[in-house]
C-alpha cells in the first residue's frame, strides 16, 4: 500500500486495514468522522462503527465497556476533546483497569490552524503522559502512522495516537521496521543531537541541513513513542555530543522535552534546549506554516537553539 501524505487520511486507511484483519476492532466517533477520517472504516464496516453524537465523555466510557466485552475500540475526536473533555473517563474507566482502548487525537497541535485556541491542543501529550499505563504515540508522517497502527492490535493497555491534520512530507525510512517504544535515527552527527516528534521531525531534518552548512554535524532522531520513552536509546543518542535540542509542537511543559529530561536526569549529559510552545494557548492563522512560524516552531529556530547551546557548552561554566 502506498503511504498517504495526509496523516488523517493515512490514519483512516490504516484503521480500515485493521478492521479487515481483526473482527474485534470497533470504531467510535463524535460527529467528526469526516475530519478524523474514521469515516473510511464506517463505509466498509457500518455495523462496527458507533456514531456517538457530540458526546466525547460518553464515547470514552462506552469504549471502556466495549473493551470489557472483548472488543478493541478506537475512539475519535479532535485531540483537545479526546484528551481534555473526556479526561476523567480516560483516567477512571480506561486507564485504571488498563483497558485496551485506542484514543485517536486528530487535528492535534496547531494543525487546526484556523479554529484557534479552543481547537488546538498544546497540552495533550502532557495530559496523556501523566496517566499511568497510557502509551503515547505521535507519528512523524503518514507512513509511520500506517506502520504504527499495525502494532496497535497486539500492543497491551490503553494507547493515545496524536494525529496531525495536514499533509506532511513522507520522511520515515520505508525499509525501517517499526516498533512501539523505539526511537529512529534519521541522520547521524557528532556535534549536536536533535530529538523531535510529529511535524517537528521534518523541521529538525531541515535544521540539521542548516547546521551542516555552518560546519556543525547534527544527528536527528524521531521519537514517536513519547511514552514509554526508550530512555536507554536517548542516553545513547546524547552520548558524545555537545548539545541536545528537543523539538515539539506542544507546550514545553510536560511534553517530549520533559520526558527527555526525565530520562537524562540520572546520567551526566550535555546541555538541553527545548523548542516548543512557551506555555500559552494557540491562535487562529491563515495557514499552518504561518502559525508554526508564529510560535517559533521552525527549522531556523531548531538550528538556532542548537547553536546557542553549543556556544554555551563551549564556555567553561555552561550547564543545562
Amino acid at each position, binding site marked *: 500500500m502506498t503511504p498517504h501524505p495526509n496523516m488523517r487520511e493515512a490514519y483512516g486507511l490504516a484503521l480500515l486495514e485493521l478492521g479487515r484483519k481483526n473482527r474485534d476492532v470497533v470504531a467510535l466517533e463524535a460527529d*467528526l468522522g469526516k475530519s478524523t477520517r474514521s469515516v473510511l472504516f464506517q463505509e466498509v464496516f457500518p455495523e462496527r462503527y458507533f*456514531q456517538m*453524537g457530540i458526546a466525547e465523555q460518553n464515547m470514552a466510557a462506552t469504549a471502556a465497556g466495549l473493551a470489557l466485552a472483548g472488543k478493541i475500540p478506537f475512539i475519535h475526536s479532535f485531540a*483537545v476533546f479526546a484528551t481534555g473533555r473526556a479526561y476523567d473517563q480516560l483516567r477512571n474507566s480506561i486507564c485504571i483497569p488498563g483497558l485496551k482502548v485506542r484514543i485517536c487525537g486528530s487535528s492535534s497541535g496547531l494543525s487546526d490552524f484556523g479554529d484557534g485556541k479552543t*481547537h488546538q491542543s498544546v497540552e495533550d501529550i502532557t495530559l496523556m503522559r501523566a496517566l499511568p499505563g497510557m502509551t503515547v504515540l505521535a507519528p512523524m508522517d503518514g507512513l509511520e502512522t500506517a506502520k504504527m497502527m499495525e502494532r496497535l492490535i497486539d500492543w497491551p493497555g490503553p494507547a493515545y495516537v496524536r494525529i496531525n491534520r495536514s499533509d506532511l512530507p513522507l520522511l520515515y525510512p520505508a525499509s525501517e521496521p517499526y516498533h512501539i517504544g523505539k526511537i529512529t535515527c534519521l541522520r547521524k552527527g557528532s556535534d549536536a543531537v536533535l530529538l523531535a516528534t510529529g511535524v517537528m521531525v521534518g523541521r529538525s531534518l531541515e535544521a540539521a541541513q542548516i547546521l551542516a552548512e555552518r560546519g556543525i554535524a547534527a544527528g536527528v532522531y524521531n521519537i514517536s513513542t513519547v511514552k514509554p520513552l526508550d530512555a536507554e536509546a536517548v542516553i545513547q543518542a546524547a552520548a558524545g555530543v555537545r548539545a541536545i535540542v528537543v523539538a515539539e509542537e506542544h507546550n514545553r511543559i510536560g511534553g517530549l522535552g520533559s520526558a527527555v529530561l526525565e530520562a537524562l536526569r540520572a546520567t551526566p549529559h550535555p546541555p538541553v534546549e527545548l523548542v516548543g510552545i512557551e506555555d500559552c494557548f494557540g491562535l487562529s492563522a491563515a495557514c499552518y506554516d504561518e502559525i508554526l512560524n508564529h510560535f517559533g516552531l521552525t527549522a531556523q529556530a531548531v538550528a538556532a537553539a542548537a547553536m546557542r547551546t553549543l556556544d554555551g557548552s563551549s564556555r567553561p561554566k555552561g550547564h543545562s
Partner: protein
Amino acid sequence: MTDTATVKKLERMALQLRFDLIEMIGVGKVGHLGGSSSMAEIAACLYFHAMRYNPQNPKDPDRDRFLLSKGHCVLIQYAALTELGVIPRAELKKVKTLEGCLQGHPDMDRTPGIEAVTGSLGMGLSIGLGMALGFRLDRRPSRVYVVMGDGELSEGQIWEAAMAAAAFKLDNLTAFVDLNRVQATGPTREIFDIPQIERKWAAFGWEVVSVNGHDVGQILQALAKAKETRGRPTVIVAETVKGKGFSFAENNAVFHNSSLTAEQHRQALCELEARRAELK
C-alpha cells in the same frame, strides 16, 4: 405585539448580517457558513431589539449577555458586533488571521464584545447559568441569552446545566436551540437523532416556546414571553434552515464548515441582492 416597522428593520438587519458573513468567508476561506446563517434572525432580534446593550458602552455591567454556546458560528456574532460598531469593519476581511482580532471561535481576550470563551461544545449554557446566578445575587437587571446547536444537545453538560438552571429557578436566563437539523457530518436524524426536544426541555423544568427561527415576529414574541416568565428559565426552540439564504448551502452538511468557490460566492451575493429587493 411588535409593529411592522420593527419587523422590517430586523429582517433587513438579518440580511445585512448575511452580507457580512459572505464578506468574511470570501472565496477559498473555510468558515462555518451553515450554522451562522441559520441563526441570523436570532442574532438580529437579540442584539438589535431584545437585549439591553449599548454599543457605546459595551462593558456596562448591567448589559444583557449574548453567549454563543455553538461557538463555531461566531462569524454571525462578529457581523452583529460590526453592525453595532463594537468591532471595526476593517476586521471582517482579516478574520482568522494573525493580523486580525477575530478568532475562529469566541475569544474574550482578543475580540471586543465577546462575553465568554466557547467553542468546545456544550459549555455555554453552564457559563450562562453562572452569570445568571451572579446577576441575581447582585440584583442586576442583566439577562443572559445562550444560543445552542441541535447537534450540540448531545453533550451531557447541557442537560446538567438545564437541570441546574431549573433547580435555581433562573428566570433571567433564556436559551435558544437552533434547530437546523444538520450537524457537522450530516442530518441529525441520520447522525444522532434526539427526538422530542421540546418535551425534554419541558420535563427538565423549562418554559418552552417553539418558533420559526426565520420569522422575526415569532422570535420577538417568544423573547417577550421569556421576559415575562417568572420562576423558571425559558428555551426558545427555533426551527431553522442550515445555510439559510444560500440555495446551494441550504440543508447541506458540506457547508457546515467549508469554503466558497468564486462562482458560489457570486451566487451568494446575487441571492442576497434578490432578498434585498424583496425587503424594499
